[in-house]
Protein backbone atom coordinates (compact mmCIF):
# COMPACT_ATOMS: atom_id res chain seq x y z
CA UNK A 1 0.00 0.00 0.00
CA UNK A 2 2.62 2.51 1.09
CA UNK A 3 4.97 1.48 -1.70
CA UNK A 4 2.18 1.88 -4.22
CA UNK A 5 1.33 5.29 -2.85
CA UNK A 6 4.95 6.30 -2.99
CA UNK A 7 5.28 5.15 -6.58
CA UNK A 8 2.08 6.95 -7.45
CA UNK A 9 3.37 10.13 -5.88
CA UNK A 10 6.66 9.73 -7.67
CA UNK A 11 4.90 9.20 -10.99
CA UNK A 12 2.67 12.17 -10.40
CA UNK A 13 5.64 14.35 -9.66
CA UNK A 14 7.23 13.19 -12.92
CA UNK A 15 4.06 14.13 -14.76
CA UNK A 16 4.13 17.48 -13.01
CA UNK A 17 7.50 17.94 -14.63
CA UNK A 18 9.39 21.02 -13.63
CA UNK A 19 8.36 21.13 -9.99
CA UNK A 20 9.57 18.48 -7.60
CA UNK A 21 7.29 17.16 -4.88
CA UNK A 22 7.85 18.53 -1.42
CA UNK A 23 7.03 16.71 1.77
CA UNK A 24 4.25 18.28 3.83
CA UNK A 25 5.57 19.95 6.98
CA UNK A 26 3.49 17.98 9.50
CA UNK A 27 4.39 20.24 12.41
CA UNK A 28 2.75 23.20 10.71
CA UNK A 29 -0.16 21.27 9.24
CA UNK A 30 -3.45 19.93 10.56
CA UNK A 31 -6.36 17.83 9.39
CA UNK A 32 -9.59 17.55 11.37
CA UNK A 33 -13.06 16.10 10.95
CA UNK A 34 -16.14 17.73 12.50
CA UNK A 35 -19.39 15.82 12.81
CA UNK A 36 -22.69 16.53 14.51
CA UNK A 37 -24.01 14.29 17.26
CA UNK A 38 -27.70 15.18 17.88
CA UNK A 39 -26.88 18.69 16.75
CA UNK A 40 -23.70 18.95 18.84
CA UNK A 41 -20.58 19.68 16.77
CA UNK A 42 -17.69 17.40 17.72
CA UNK A 43 -14.22 17.84 16.26
CA UNK A 44 -11.56 15.14 16.00
CA UNK A 45 -7.99 15.82 14.92
CA UNK A 46 -5.65 13.58 12.99
CA UNK A 47 -2.42 13.99 14.91
CA UNK A 48 -0.23 12.26 12.32
CA UNK A 49 -0.38 13.39 8.73
CA UNK A 50 2.02 13.22 5.82
CA UNK A 51 2.24 13.39 2.07
CA UNK A 52 3.72 15.16 -0.89
CA UNK A 53 2.73 18.26 -2.78
CA UNK A 54 4.24 19.70 -5.93
CA UNK A 55 3.12 23.23 -6.50
CA UNK A 56 4.43 26.07 -8.58
CA UNK A 57 2.66 29.37 -8.04
CA UNK A 58 3.50 30.22 -11.66
CA UNK A 59 1.72 27.13 -12.92
CA UNK A 60 -0.84 26.03 -10.31
CA UNK A 61 -2.84 23.94 -12.79
CA UNK A 62 0.06 21.47 -12.88
CA UNK A 63 0.05 21.01 -9.12
CA UNK A 64 -0.22 17.53 -7.65
CA UNK A 65 -0.97 16.46 -4.12
CA UNK A 66 -1.03 13.29 -2.11
CA UNK A 67 -2.06 13.57 1.53
CA UNK A 68 -2.03 10.67 4.00
CA UNK A 69 -3.47 10.60 7.49
CA UNK A 70 -2.80 8.01 10.14
CA UNK A 71 -6.20 6.71 11.30
CA UNK A 72 -4.85 5.57 14.68
CA UNK A 73 -3.89 9.17 15.43
CA UNK A 74 -7.52 10.40 15.34
CA UNK A 75 -8.07 12.24 18.60
CA UNK A 76 -11.50 13.24 19.95
CA UNK A 77 -10.02 14.43 23.23
CA UNK A 78 -11.15 11.41 25.23
CA UNK A 79 -9.37 8.03 25.38
CA UNK A 80 -12.65 6.07 25.56
CA UNK A 81 -13.99 7.72 22.41
CA UNK A 82 -10.62 7.36 20.69
CA UNK A 83 -10.69 3.61 21.28
CA UNK A 84 -14.31 3.38 20.15
CA UNK A 85 -13.75 5.04 16.75
CA UNK A 86 -11.00 2.55 15.89
CA UNK A 87 -13.53 -0.30 16.10
CA UNK A 88 -14.86 -2.19 13.09
CA UNK A 89 -18.12 -0.20 12.96
CA UNK A 90 -16.15 3.04 12.63
CA UNK A 91 -12.74 3.45 11.01
CA UNK A 92 -11.69 -0.19 11.46
CA UNK A 93 -8.20 1.14 12.04
CA UNK A 94 -6.66 -2.33 12.29
CA UNK A 95 -7.64 -3.17 8.69
CA UNK A 96 -7.46 0.33 7.24
CA UNK A 97 -4.67 2.16 9.05
CA UNK A 98 -4.44 5.07 6.60
CA UNK A 99 -6.75 7.42 4.74
CA UNK A 100 -5.55 9.36 1.72
CA UNK A 101 -6.37 12.04 -0.75
CA UNK A 102 -4.80 11.95 -4.22
CA UNK A 103 -5.41 14.88 -6.51
CA UNK A 104 -6.43 14.37 -10.12
CA UNK A 105 -6.78 17.94 -11.27
CA UNK A 106 -6.50 21.56 -10.22
CA UNK A 107 -8.57 24.47 -11.46
CA UNK A 108 -7.95 28.11 -10.60
CA UNK A 109 -10.90 29.76 -8.88
CA UNK A 110 -9.82 33.35 -8.40
CA UNK A 111 -6.79 34.96 -6.78
CA UNK A 112 -5.03 32.40 -4.58
CA UNK A 113 -8.03 30.10 -4.71
CA UNK A 114 -8.30 26.70 -6.32
CA UNK A 115 -10.66 23.84 -6.83
CA UNK A 116 -8.79 20.58 -6.44
CA UNK A 117 -10.49 17.40 -7.58
CA UNK A 118 -9.25 14.07 -6.41
CA UNK A 119 -9.91 10.75 -4.85
CA UNK A 120 -10.53 10.50 -1.13
CA UNK A 121 -10.01 7.03 0.32
CA UNK A 122 -11.14 6.16 3.84
CA UNK A 123 -11.74 2.67 5.22
CA UNK A 124 -10.88 1.22 1.80
CA UNK A 125 -13.71 3.13 0.08
CA UNK A 126 -12.87 5.78 -2.51
CA UNK A 127 -15.00 8.77 -3.38
CA UNK A 128 -14.27 11.53 -5.88
CA UNK A 129 -14.37 14.91 -4.19
CA UNK A 130 -13.83 18.48 -5.23
CA UNK A 131 -12.02 20.53 -2.61
CA UNK A 132 -12.04 24.32 -2.57
CA UNK A 133 -8.87 25.71 -1.03
CA UNK A 134 -6.72 28.79 -0.74
CA UNK A 135 -2.97 29.00 -1.16
CA UNK A 136 -0.66 31.63 0.30
CA UNK A 137 3.03 32.01 0.88
CA UNK A 138 3.99 31.97 4.54
CA UNK A 139 7.50 31.82 5.97
CA UNK A 140 9.25 29.88 3.22
CA UNK A 141 6.29 27.59 2.69
CA UNK A 142 3.03 27.55 0.83
CA UNK A 143 0.05 27.09 3.12
CA UNK A 144 -3.03 25.44 1.66
CA UNK A 145 -6.23 25.79 3.63
CA UNK A 146 -9.74 24.62 3.01
CA UNK A 147 -12.60 22.40 4.04
CA UNK A 148 -14.80 19.90 2.30
CA UNK A 149 -18.03 18.23 3.41
CA UNK A 150 -18.19 14.48 2.91
CA UNK A 151 -20.79 11.82 3.72
CA UNK A 152 -19.60 9.43 6.40
CA UNK A 153 -21.94 6.66 5.22
CA UNK A 154 -20.25 6.69 1.79
CA UNK A 155 -17.19 5.39 3.66
CA UNK A 156 -19.18 3.10 5.99
CA UNK A 157 -18.06 5.13 9.00
CA UNK A 158 -20.58 4.19 11.68
CA UNK A 159 -22.17 0.89 10.76
CA UNK A 160 -25.05 -1.07 12.26
CA UNK A 161 -27.10 0.92 14.74
CA UNK A 162 -24.73 3.86 14.24
CA UNK A 163 -26.14 4.40 10.73
CA UNK A 164 -28.92 6.47 12.32
CA UNK A 165 -28.29 9.97 10.97
CA UNK A 166 -30.65 11.52 13.55
CA UNK A 167 -28.11 10.43 16.15
CA UNK A 168 -25.03 11.14 14.04
CA UNK A 169 -25.37 13.36 10.97
CA UNK A 170 -24.21 11.94 7.67
CA UNK A 171 -22.31 15.10 6.80
CA UNK A 172 -18.79 15.40 8.18
CA UNK A 173 -16.66 18.44 7.41
CA UNK A 174 -12.98 17.77 6.82
CA UNK A 175 -10.86 20.83 7.52
CA UNK A 176 -7.21 21.06 6.63
CA UNK A 177 -4.19 23.29 6.73
CA UNK A 178 -1.16 21.98 4.87
CA UNK A 179 2.19 23.72 4.98
CA UNK A 180 4.46 22.75 2.10
CA UNK A 181 8.06 24.00 2.00
CA UNK A 182 8.75 26.08 -1.10
CA UNK A 183 11.36 24.58 -3.42
CA UNK A 184 12.16 23.67 -6.95
Amino acid at each position, binding site marked *: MRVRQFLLAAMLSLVAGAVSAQTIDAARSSVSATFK*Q*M*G*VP*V*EGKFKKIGGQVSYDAANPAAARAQVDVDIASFDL*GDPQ*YNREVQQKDWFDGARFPAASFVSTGVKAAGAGRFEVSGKLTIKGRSVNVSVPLSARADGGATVFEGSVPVRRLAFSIGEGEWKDTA*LLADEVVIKFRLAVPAGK
Partner: protein
Amino acid sequence: MSAPYTSTAKWLHWLVAALIFANLALGLTMVDIPGITPTKLRYFNWHKWVGVTVFALVTLRLAWRAMHPPPPLPDSMPRWERRAAAASHAALYALMFALPLSGYFYSLAVGFPVVYLGLFPLPVLIEPNPALKEPLVLLHHVLAWSIIVLLLVHVGAALKHRFVDRDDVLQRILPRQT
Protein backbone atom coordinates in the same frame (compact mmCIF):
# COMPACT_ATOMS: atom_id res chain seq x y z
CA MET B 1 -57.98 26.61 55.92
CA SER B 2 -55.12 28.90 54.84
CA ALA B 3 -54.75 30.20 51.28
CA PRO B 4 -53.36 27.82 48.65
CA TYR B 5 -50.49 28.53 46.26
CA THR B 6 -51.46 30.18 42.97
CA SER B 7 -52.28 27.71 40.23
CA THR B 8 -49.21 28.91 38.27
CA ALA B 9 -47.02 28.09 41.27
CA LYS B 10 -48.67 24.65 41.51
CA TRP B 11 -48.13 23.91 37.84
CA LEU B 12 -44.49 24.97 38.02
CA HIS B 13 -43.94 22.93 41.19
CA TRP B 14 -45.33 19.68 39.75
CA LEU B 15 -43.82 20.14 36.33
CA VAL B 16 -40.37 20.73 37.79
CA ALA B 17 -40.89 17.83 40.22
CA ALA B 18 -41.71 15.45 37.36
CA LEU B 19 -38.73 16.64 35.30
CA ILE B 20 -36.34 16.30 38.26
CA PHE B 21 -37.50 12.76 39.02
CA ALA B 22 -37.25 11.81 35.35
CA ASN B 23 -33.78 13.33 35.05
CA LEU B 24 -32.47 11.68 38.22
CA ALA B 25 -33.69 8.32 36.88
CA LEU B 26 -32.22 9.03 33.45
CA GLY B 27 -28.91 10.20 34.92
CA LEU B 28 -28.53 7.20 37.22
CA THR B 29 -29.43 4.85 34.35
CA MET B 30 -27.16 6.34 31.68
CA VAL B 31 -23.99 6.34 33.77
CA ASP B 32 -24.41 2.58 34.29
CA ILE B 33 -24.48 1.79 30.55
CA PRO B 34 -21.05 0.34 29.76
CA GLY B 35 -19.05 1.52 26.75
CA ILE B 36 -20.43 3.85 24.11
CA THR B 37 -23.83 2.99 22.62
CA PRO B 38 -26.46 4.94 20.66
CA THR B 39 -28.84 4.61 23.63
CA LYS B 40 -26.25 6.05 25.97
CA LEU B 41 -25.59 9.04 23.70
CA ARG B 42 -29.34 9.66 23.37
CA TYR B 43 -29.82 9.50 27.16
CA PHE B 44 -26.95 11.93 27.72
CA ASN B 45 -28.47 14.43 25.30
CA TRP B 46 -31.99 14.06 26.76
CA HIS B 47 -30.52 14.42 30.26
CA LYS B 48 -28.90 17.72 29.26
CA TRP B 49 -32.07 19.01 27.58
CA VAL B 50 -34.20 18.18 30.65
CA GLY B 51 -31.58 19.83 32.90
CA VAL B 52 -31.68 23.01 30.81
CA THR B 53 -35.50 22.95 30.95
CA VAL B 54 -35.44 22.61 34.75
CA PHE B 55 -32.99 25.51 34.99
CA ALA B 56 -35.27 27.73 32.89
CA LEU B 57 -38.44 26.70 34.76
CA VAL B 58 -36.84 27.25 38.16
CA THR B 59 -35.79 30.74 37.08
CA LEU B 60 -39.43 31.34 36.17
CA ARG B 61 -40.56 29.88 39.49
CA LEU B 62 -38.34 32.19 41.49
CA ALA B 63 -39.54 35.22 39.52
CA TRP B 64 -43.16 34.15 40.10
CA ARG B 65 -42.45 33.52 43.77
CA ALA B 66 -40.94 36.99 44.15
CA MET B 67 -44.15 38.51 42.78
CA HIS B 68 -46.50 36.09 44.53
CA PRO B 69 -45.19 35.24 48.00
CA PRO B 70 -46.14 31.74 49.19
CA PRO B 71 -49.00 31.50 51.68
CA PRO B 72 -47.89 31.72 55.32
CA LEU B 73 -47.21 28.55 57.30
CA PRO B 74 -49.82 27.59 59.92
CA ASP B 75 -49.42 29.12 63.39
CA SER B 76 -49.33 25.63 64.88
CA MET B 77 -45.80 25.04 63.48
CA PRO B 78 -42.99 25.39 66.04
CA ARG B 79 -40.19 27.82 65.28
CA TRP B 80 -37.58 25.17 64.51
CA GLU B 81 -39.87 23.65 61.90
CA ARG B 82 -40.40 27.02 60.22
CA ARG B 83 -36.67 27.54 60.13
CA ALA B 84 -36.06 24.03 58.81
CA ALA B 85 -38.72 24.55 56.13
CA ALA B 86 -37.18 27.85 55.04
CA ALA B 87 -33.67 26.37 55.00
CA SER B 88 -34.60 23.23 53.09
CA HIS B 89 -36.60 25.20 50.51
CA ALA B 90 -33.66 27.58 50.05
CA ALA B 91 -31.33 24.60 49.65
CA LEU B 92 -33.66 22.97 47.11
CA TYR B 93 -33.77 26.14 45.03
CA ALA B 94 -29.99 26.47 45.23
CA LEU B 95 -29.58 22.86 44.09
CA MET B 96 -32.10 23.23 41.29
CA PHE B 97 -29.77 25.90 39.88
CA ALA B 98 -26.42 24.41 40.84
CA LEU B 99 -27.15 20.88 39.60
CA PRO B 100 -27.92 21.84 35.97
CA LEU B 101 -25.12 24.42 35.98
CA SER B 102 -22.51 21.90 37.16
CA GLY B 103 -23.65 19.49 34.44
CA TYR B 104 -23.60 22.24 31.83
CA PHE B 105 -20.04 23.24 32.69
CA TYR B 106 -18.96 19.61 32.85
CA SER B 107 -20.28 19.09 29.32
CA LEU B 108 -18.42 22.20 28.13
CA ALA B 109 -15.21 21.09 29.86
CA VAL B 110 -15.43 17.74 28.07
CA GLY B 111 -15.86 19.61 24.78
CA PHE B 112 -19.54 18.89 24.11
CA PRO B 113 -21.43 22.17 23.94
CA VAL B 114 -25.13 21.78 24.72
CA VAL B 115 -27.48 22.11 21.74
CA TYR B 116 -30.99 22.36 23.21
CA LEU B 117 -33.32 19.78 21.60
CA GLY B 118 -30.58 19.28 19.00
CA LEU B 119 -31.58 22.60 17.45
CA PHE B 120 -30.50 25.56 19.56
CA PRO B 121 -26.82 25.91 20.46
CA LEU B 122 -26.47 27.30 23.99
CA PRO B 123 -23.60 29.61 25.00
CA VAL B 124 -20.14 28.08 25.18
CA LEU B 125 -18.96 29.78 28.36
CA ILE B 126 -15.67 27.90 28.81
CA GLU B 127 -13.24 26.19 26.47
CA PRO B 128 -12.78 22.41 26.67
CA ASN B 129 -10.59 21.80 29.70
CA PRO B 130 -9.48 18.27 30.65
CA ALA B 131 -8.31 19.47 34.08
CA LEU B 132 -11.87 20.53 34.99
CA LYS B 133 -13.53 17.27 33.93
CA GLU B 134 -12.88 15.30 37.14
CA PRO B 135 -13.79 18.03 39.65
CA LEU B 136 -16.94 19.04 37.74
CA VAL B 137 -18.28 15.52 37.34
CA LEU B 138 -17.60 14.89 41.04
CA LEU B 139 -19.44 18.11 41.91
CA HIS B 140 -22.36 17.10 39.67
CA HIS B 141 -22.63 13.73 41.41
CA VAL B 142 -22.37 15.19 44.92
CA LEU B 143 -25.07 17.76 44.07
CA ALA B 144 -27.28 15.02 42.57
CA TRP B 145 -27.05 12.90 45.70
CA SER B 146 -27.63 16.01 47.84
CA ILE B 147 -30.87 16.80 46.01
CA ILE B 148 -31.97 13.16 46.33
CA VAL B 149 -31.51 13.38 50.11
CA LEU B 150 -33.24 16.77 50.27
CA LEU B 151 -36.15 15.50 48.16
CA LEU B 152 -36.62 12.62 50.60
CA VAL B 153 -36.70 15.16 53.45
CA HIS B 154 -39.11 17.34 51.41
CA VAL B 155 -41.52 14.47 50.70
CA GLY B 156 -41.15 13.14 54.25
CA ALA B 157 -41.99 16.56 55.69
CA ALA B 158 -45.01 16.91 53.40
CA LEU B 159 -46.31 13.52 54.57
CA LYS B 160 -45.66 14.45 58.19
CA HIS B 161 -47.76 17.60 57.73
CA ARG B 162 -50.56 15.58 56.20
CA PHE B 163 -50.64 12.51 58.45
CA VAL B 164 -48.92 13.46 61.71
CA ASP B 165 -49.55 17.18 62.19
CA ARG B 166 -52.81 16.94 60.20
CA ASP B 167 -52.46 20.54 59.02
CA ASP B 168 -53.06 21.78 55.47
CA VAL B 169 -49.47 22.49 54.38
CA LEU B 170 -49.46 19.67 51.81
CA GLN B 171 -52.94 20.48 50.45
CA ARG B 172 -51.86 24.04 49.59
CA ILE B 173 -49.72 22.75 46.71
CA LEU B 174 -52.05 19.96 45.54
CA PRO B 175 -54.11 20.52 42.40
CA ARG B 176 -57.75 21.62 42.77
CA GLN B 177 -58.05 22.29 46.43
CA THR B 178 -61.55 21.97 47.91
